[in-house]
């Protein structure tokens, strides 16, 4: 709505026609706080809340924008669909590790949506039905149901969580049912007789006893190739062979447009209407048949062909212009070998975040002096200043040690770490590291004094004292071991 959007304090409702009545179809937080709820007549709402803003609900525009959001969500997983009126469904099987695990993926999803002004809640569960219920009843704003726990969680939720029509829910409430578990425990036959098969179907879908396929959304401008099989295929070799053929066809399509693929989705439509998917990403645009085939074939073993695969679809869901590059043709200069294909292979296997380089940061605080950058980031040739000794192994959390040391600036005479007491034979230091007041106020006067100490056998350690040894304001004066030298 841009400039004309009402402020957050103004109650807003969306109105729509149902039969010959105008009803409230949606209400924002302010409107709900003022006592309005979905389903009351429009005139009553206007009487109850004086400064109410109301808009007509445009169902078609809503559905279109939900579709746009579904297309956007393709960045998270290859199988995505809109779940009208207000949901998105994403099949994250085999895709979560690329986003740092399920929790991290949900956090990222919700915060990205929040950044564009959409208040979202997200949940991961074993089935669509369970995820649908958890997102609406449990997510604050995210929720991850442990694998196999979905039925137990569903049993504790109110019956509204079952995606049933309003009249069935109201009928069940009249009969005294409140929780999903109570319906599950009741005899199925009499409930079906009274409410129809819908109740049992929704219950089974949520509990994972009945499959629930859905048609993934596809954008019309997507570069996609498809192959249908007369006889369903299932053997890994056969799948690999047709993967190669599809990649070759896709690369031709990409070449015609001058594009290279950054992300590929290979979808397997099984005879039982389920869809399995493989997603592979690349660090730079690629149009090399062999390399792309390799990336996809690497993951074929994760695909469960079930009773057979009827259709395979390969789509380049993220493409970039494939720029021609000048290569070194000099006689003396050897070209730098290209390792982006290795990085792609490893990144698709273990996740992009777990593949990185370190880059220097101008900070004297050891744990802040290195930052992780993408493995393919350009090499600027910088390094750390080399005059002070640094240990090859740094403990993530400095461990407290017991020591005996003279204040203010002497190294310890002995120290005891992990139950072993060591006499300090030689020591070097202190190297004083000041707190970085621009990071946190508490570091304004904080000080660490680092010492390199060597015991009688020759083992060398990096220890520090929090504080300057004189002023208690600068630190606790406790000693810590921060790293191990060689």
């Amino acid at each position, binding site marked *: 709505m841009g400039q004309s959007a009402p402020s957050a304090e103004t109650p807003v409702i969306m109105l729509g026609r149902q039969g010959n009545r105008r009803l409230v179809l949606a209400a924002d937080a302010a409107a709900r706080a003022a006592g309005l709820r979905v389903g009351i007549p429009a005139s009553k709402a206007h009487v109850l809340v004086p400064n109410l803003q109301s808009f007509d609900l445009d169902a078609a525009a809503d559905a279109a924008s939900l579709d746009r959001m579904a297309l956007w969500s393709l960045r998270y997983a290859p199988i995505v669909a809109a779940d009208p009126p207000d949901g998105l469904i994403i099949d994250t099987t085999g895709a979560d590790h690329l986003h740092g695990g399920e929790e991290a993926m949900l956090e990222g999803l919700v915060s990205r949506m929040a950044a564009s002004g959409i208040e979202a809640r997200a949940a991961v569960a074993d089935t669509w039905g369970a995820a649908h219920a958890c997102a609406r009843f449990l997510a604050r704003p995210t929720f991850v149901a442990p694998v196999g726990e979905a039925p137990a969680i569903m049993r504790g939720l109110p019956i509204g969580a079952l995606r049933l029509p309003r009249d069935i829910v109201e009928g069940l409430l009249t009969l005294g049912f409140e929780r999903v578990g109570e319906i599950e425990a009741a005899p199925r036959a009499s409930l079906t007789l009274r409410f129809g098969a819908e109740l049992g179907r929704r219950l089974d879908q949520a509990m994972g006893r009945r499959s629930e396929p859905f048609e993934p959304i596809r954008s019309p401008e997507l570069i996609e190739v498809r192959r249908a099989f007369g006889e369903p295929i299932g053997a890994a070799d056969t799948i690999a062979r047709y993967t190669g053929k599809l990649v070759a066809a896709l690369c031709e399509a990409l070449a015609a447009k001058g594009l290279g693929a950054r992300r590929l989705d290979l979808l397997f439509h099984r005879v039982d209407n389920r869809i399995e998917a493989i997603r592979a990403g690349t660090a730079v645009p690629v149009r090399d048949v062999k390399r792309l085939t390799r990336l996809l074939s690497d993951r074929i073993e994760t695909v469960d062909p079930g009773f057979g695969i009827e259709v395979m679809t390969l789509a380049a869901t993220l493409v970039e212009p494939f720029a021609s590059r000048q290569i070194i043709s000099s006689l003396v200069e050897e070209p730098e070998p290209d390792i982006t*294909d*290795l990085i792609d292979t490893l990144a698709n296997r*273990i996740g992009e975040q777990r593949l*990185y*380089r370190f880059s220097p940061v101008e900070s004297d605080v050891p744990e802040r002096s290195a930052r992780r950058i993408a493995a393919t980031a350009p090499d600027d040739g910088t390094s750390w200043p080399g005059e002070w000794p*640094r240990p*090859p192994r740094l403990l993530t959390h400095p461990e407290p040690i017991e020591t005996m040391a003279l204040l203010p600036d002497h190294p310890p005479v002995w120290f005891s770490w992990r139950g072993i007491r060591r006499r300090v034979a030689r020591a*070097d230091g202190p190297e004083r590291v000041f707190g970085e007041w621009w990071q946190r106020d508490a570091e304004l006067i904080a000080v660490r004094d680092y010492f390199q100490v060597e015991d009688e056998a020759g083992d060398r350690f990096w220890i520090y004292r929090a504080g300057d040894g004189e002023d208690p304001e600068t630190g606790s004066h406790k000693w810590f071991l921060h*790293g191990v030298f060689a």
Partner: protein
Amino acid sequence: MGQPSASPAIAALRERIARLEGGPARNRATLPFGVASIDKVLPGGGLALGALHEVAGGRNGAIDGAAAALFAAGIAARAKGKVLWCVTRQDLFAPALAQAGLLPGRVVYVEAGDEASVLACFEEGLRHGGLGAVVAELARLSMTASRRLQLAAEASGAIGIAIRRWRRQTEATDFGQPTAAVTRWRVTALPSRPLPVPGIGRARWQLELIRVRAGESADFGVEACDDKGRLALFSDLADRSPATHNGPVRAIG
């Protein structure tokens, strides 16, 4: 071969064994340490490229793997090309590796999460061919796995270094098990070079070459990697037995 053979018969025999061991495509290039007494005992006068090497720390180093990491970093720094460093969980401090000559722009780290993934990434890196050195930190290395790694390294010419690192001191006995690695090293920290003033001098290591294919094992007292990754022998050898610095004792075979 390491030292000039006493008779041409033995030389011919060695040549035959070498032919049996590897095909014609076998990469015979080596990376010398630049320390004559170490290069002398290694076949080909240096650490074989296109081969798997094992390094472990002695004493505490079996657990923290600090000296072993620096030793590997020194080798990787002197090798050409990019370096892939696979770990289960990251505790390396990159500035220290940069001090051993391995600049941050050359190393790609892989935090694989578990041993099986480390092995898979290690092999993938060795097989690729565009890397100069691949380093992996492993607790267990079976004969089969090491054979695969060795073959992958032979095909690509990259130098593979397995840093053996265990959770407990008692598990370090695993280092006695045979693997297909070409050399096996143990690096133990020694008291640093004495200085005329209070302080810690350049670090020193006891470098044991426990096993080398077609060569004999030996011990060296070395000064740790400098900023180019080079080792150096002790200047004072007063406390060492004469056998160790006169080269290894000649043995049959």
